């Protein structure tokens, strides 16, 4: 039973394993008693009800249908789709409090701007992807390339491209607003699924915030690292040497592309025409359309839609950068558990931009910067499924040096986005983490396969570390979760 006496002495971290995606339960304990249930995200790429239900059942059972705090990091399907799929079970669970990033706050004008813009990008992307998917369904490319040398391979590479784009788009759970209504937030979604109930407390967090003295979580400080308030950070992704200089905002360079895909009425369509009507081809010179149509292999009907590829990637990154990144700290030992969501480079970088957090050292409150929090990190939920751009180097992993460090990566090769298969895991990052954790590194998916993919020619792993990794992971073979306990 929950008690208000004494401080939290340990945290048990349970990573549910369905597929690539985050679904965590942190049980904050005083002695042997669970005092506070903290849930972070619930998602899996391409996840279905049948896959989620047993896991959510387990969650309901061991928490006695009560979650003290739910943290929703960001709006990608691989972090939130479980709430919808298992909404029947979630409706039986009591949620005391739910945290979102400030970007979901409907009273925040900047957040509303972002969301309106994001919603437009999302709509444009799904329209483009819809059009391209219809082409592959119709066998368009097979027919188009039937006479070409290597035509089958050409069609295959187009199908691959469209498939990767489709997969990327599946991350986006978009909801179109009703006319005149504001753009829906994740709060609206979670209310729809009956996760957020009438008496659930919804809070929005800002970078620099430190939440203390949550009831039943005595002795724990929640430091909010991201997402950044400065919009320019949101579009930054990892770059070699971390000196990223480009400031291309997808919404602006792609404005003309998006507006033609989202135009709803003739007047809006007309406003998209780049030239006046008088220049349009009419009447006599009509042999040009005939000539154009007579050489199918040279047509460009659909090529313009491929621009959706780079837009989708930039969009994915900028949403990853809206991740609510938390450092959960034990007051007594100063140890930190780092949960960055899927934060990419811009989010990590912003933590170091003049931010400080209130930390209790002895009996005094001191203001410490991000380097301090990283230095105290003993548990790291690896950002963005172990991709090379989900963990910053100089501003991130290089500053995490505690000998006690353990890590968990939510990566699985069975259920994964096809584009991610070629970017995850980053062998260099994984090797660095195996070294820093001395093998206390857990994988959501089949650890044997992931370890094999990590072992490229350019990295080396110590035998002892590998044995430790094997020992720790194999305990959970066949189980639907992995666990690690951090004592405060």
């Amino acid at each position: 039973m929950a008690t208000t006496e004494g401080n939290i002495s340990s945290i048990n971290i349970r990573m549910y394993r369905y597929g690539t995606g985050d679904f965590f339960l942190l049980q904050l304990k005083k002695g042997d008693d669970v005092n506070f249930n903290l849930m972070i995200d619930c998602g899996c790429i391409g996840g279905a009800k049948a896959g989620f239900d047993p896991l959510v059942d387990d969650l309901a059972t061991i928490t006695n249908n009560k979650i003290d705090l739910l943290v929703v990091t960001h709006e990608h399907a691989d972090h939130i789709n479980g709430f919808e799929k298992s909404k029947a079970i979630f409706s039986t669970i009591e949620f005391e409090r739910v945290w979102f990033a400030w970007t979901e706050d409907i009273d925040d004008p900047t957040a509303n701007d972002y969301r309106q813009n994001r919603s437009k990008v999302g709509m444009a992307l799904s329209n483009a992807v819809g059009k391209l998917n219809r082409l592959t369904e119709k066998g368009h490319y097979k027919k188009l390339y039937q006479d070409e040398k290597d035509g089958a391979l050409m069609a295959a590479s187009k199908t691959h491209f469209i498939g990767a784009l489709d997969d990327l788009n599946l991350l986006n759970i978009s909801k179109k607003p009703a006319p005149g209504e504001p753009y829906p937030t994740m709060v609206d979604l979670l209310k729809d699924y009956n996760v957020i109930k009438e008496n659930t407390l919804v809070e929005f967090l800002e970078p620099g915030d430190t939440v203390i003295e949550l009831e039943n979580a005595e002795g724990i400080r929640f430091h909010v690292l991201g997402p950044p308030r400065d919009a320019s950070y949101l579009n930054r992704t990892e770059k070699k040497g971390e000196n990223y200089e480009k400031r291309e905002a997808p919404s602006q360079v792609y404005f003309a592309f998006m507006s033609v895909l989202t135009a709803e009425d003739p007047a809006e369509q007309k406003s998209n025409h780049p030239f006046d009507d008088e220049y349009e081809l009419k009447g006599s010179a009509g042999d040009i359309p005939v000539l154009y149509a007579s050489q199918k292999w040279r047509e460009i009907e659909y090529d313009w839609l491929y621009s959706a590829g780079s837009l989708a990637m930039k969009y994915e990154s900028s949403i990853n950068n809206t991740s609510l990144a938390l450092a959960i700290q034990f007051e007594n030992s100063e140890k930190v558990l780092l949960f960055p969501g899927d934060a990419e480079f811009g989010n990590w970088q912003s933590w170091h931009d003049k931010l400080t957090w209130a930390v209790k050292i002895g009996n005094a409150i001191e203001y410490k910067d991000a380097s301090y929090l990283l230095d105290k990190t003993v548990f790291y939920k690896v950002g963005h499924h172990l991709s090379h751009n989900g963990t910053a180097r100089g501003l991130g992993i290089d500053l995490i040096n505690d000998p006690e460090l353990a890590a968990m990566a939510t990566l699985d090769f069975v259920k994964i986005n096809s584009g991610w298969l070629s970017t995850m895991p980053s062998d260099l990052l994984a090797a660095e983490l195996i070294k820093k954790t001395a093998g206390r590194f857990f994988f959501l998916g089949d650890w044997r396969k992931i370890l094999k993919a990590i072992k490229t020619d350019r990295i080396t792993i110590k035998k002892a570390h590998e044995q430790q990794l094997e020992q720790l992971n194999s305990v959970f073979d066949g189980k639907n979760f992995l666990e690690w306990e951090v004592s405060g």
Partner: protein
Amino acid sequence: MLKKPPYRKLRGYAFDPSLSLKMDTSLINEIIYKIPWEDNQERANGKYISGSAENPKTGRGEGNRGKTGLSPGPCGEYLDVIDYDPTVNKFYAPVDLSDEYILAQDGLSPSASNPQFHQQMVYAVAMTTIKNFESALGRPVLWSARKTEYVPDLQRTANTPIEVDEDGQVKKKIREEYVRTLRIYPHAFRDANAYYSPQKKALLFGYFSAKPADVTLQMPDNLTFTCLSHDIIAHETTHAILDGLHRKYTEATNPDVLAFHEAFADIIALFQHFTFPEVLKNQIAVTRGDLASQNLLGKLAQEFGVAIGGYGSLRDAIGKFDSDTNEWHPIRPTGDEYRTLMEPHERGSILVAAVFEAFLSIYKSRVADLLRIATNGTGILPQGELQPDLVNRLAAEASKAAQHVLNMCIRAIDYCPPVDINFGDFLRAVITADTDLVTDDNRDYRLAFIDAFRKRGIYPTGIKHLSVESLSYAKPATKDIEDVMTILVKFLKEYREAINYQTDREQIFRITQLYIGGKYDQKPALVGLHRRLINKFTQSISFEKLSGIMFGRNWKELGINTSTAYLQENPAVNVSGLYVASRVGPNGNKSNQIIVQLVQTAFLKMEKNSKGEPLIQPATEKTGFGMSGGCTLIFDLDSVILKYSISKPLIDIGRLDDNVHQIDRRRCIAIHKFQNPLPGEGTQFQAYFGMQGLNNLNEPFNFLHTH
């Protein structure tokens, strides 16, 4: 009787519309392009003869549109501009350059809001680029052929066996179709991009809304049209021309191949700036003759660079803007560039900067005397504006030096290997080509090149030290195949006779096809080059050594396909190019050469042996990856010899003396490693959407420009 005019004059931007909005550049930005005159298409009863496709069903052949003269589009002998915007499903009326009002005023006046001017602009710049290539190469530009497959007609091929593939299907044959015009779509998509499509034989230009970093340079949300930028049009046209000369350069087999495509396209665009006299004079005056300082000539795609959020041009051959201080400063080579920069555009910039530096050294040495005269030997120019006569003289020297450098680069293309090129190969090609034609390098042009490449860490492999002598290719050893070579050269001379006075591009294409493939079903029969090579060099170790291509017995063990042409089994080999190069040097010395490109492909699997070392195993097209090797053979028709063999061996040359045929291991491992990047290598976009070695089949240049 009036003579035909040599030129059609067309107005256009020297750079792009953004420079017309600045006071200091607006005057020089509007120039007149002089395009080789194409006759106006005949009109019947005042209307153009409609040119529909020959066969609307198959889409084969392009009909007569543009063939009998320039028709609205513009559509002529080389280019076919079709202004269709699929994003809004609209065709725009084609500009009629033969309209008397348009003729009388040197084309439409530059305007971003008139799509007909856009059509005129792409035509003018693309034709200018083509003309520059033709004058340097000494032969017409041909676009790369379209390769299609067909099921062979069972009756007609009685004397060649029908081949069956692994699944029992009749093996399709490959046909190379002549493509007369490069299609240009000025408004093809909405993105900050433009690309050459090797599949469509088309240039696609995008337009997009601007996102300027500095709103004083450009209005936000203003549409930026890539088809209005001289640099972008010249760049994309060069991609198309290079693909016509070296088809395999779209296959990325090492970090340099695509970077070379990019760099070469940039080099052409840059040096074309020097062919605009008013621009050149203006910039000489502005920089007081110092072209190494910030100037318009060394910058590429200025409007584009600003529109996507940069402070200056997209690329700059001599300097860059510091993003913190917004100040331009020159870039000094560190010597590390070639080893560290891998992204194709960044890597390409190394080559561009090297060539540009070579140009600057040449220019400086050419104007040294002028400056001495103008400064009474002090070398210090007086304050204030330069004397106009001095400006003219300096501009003339700059223009000459630029023309020389441009010609050296274009000529070198014929001396490059047909596959897997790297920057070192290009340096050797420049030096060899120049040594061939210019006997007396009294101005040290070659040294200028070697020095600029050396400063950036570009060293050709297998060279003991950097000097003109060691960089020029040596004559290959042909001792025991001398007789055969003589016969071959005689045949090549016949080819030259057949093609020498041919000006029709389609005829050149057909005659070349005939001399490569031969003619066996009609009289008089002609034994083609391909058959001759196979007959003459079967199991010739000497020829294998110089070409790096397999003619021995055990080709199947090396994963090389079997050809059953000519009723016998042989290792498949492809004659991928056959060109005549007749050139005249500065001293009037002529060189008559024939260039033959041979390519052979092995299909391989990369496995590991028990020690974890790479093990190369033969495979098939379906199960393995392709590794191509080949050579460029340069025959001198006057001395009747094989002068050079520039090869990227498929087989291990070193083991041939022991009569061992095996795949060149070093190249094979390098290609495999490059085409299977580890996470974090290569761009994220490629990792998500690409298919490694097959990217050349899916708009390689669109992929390359997207990131």
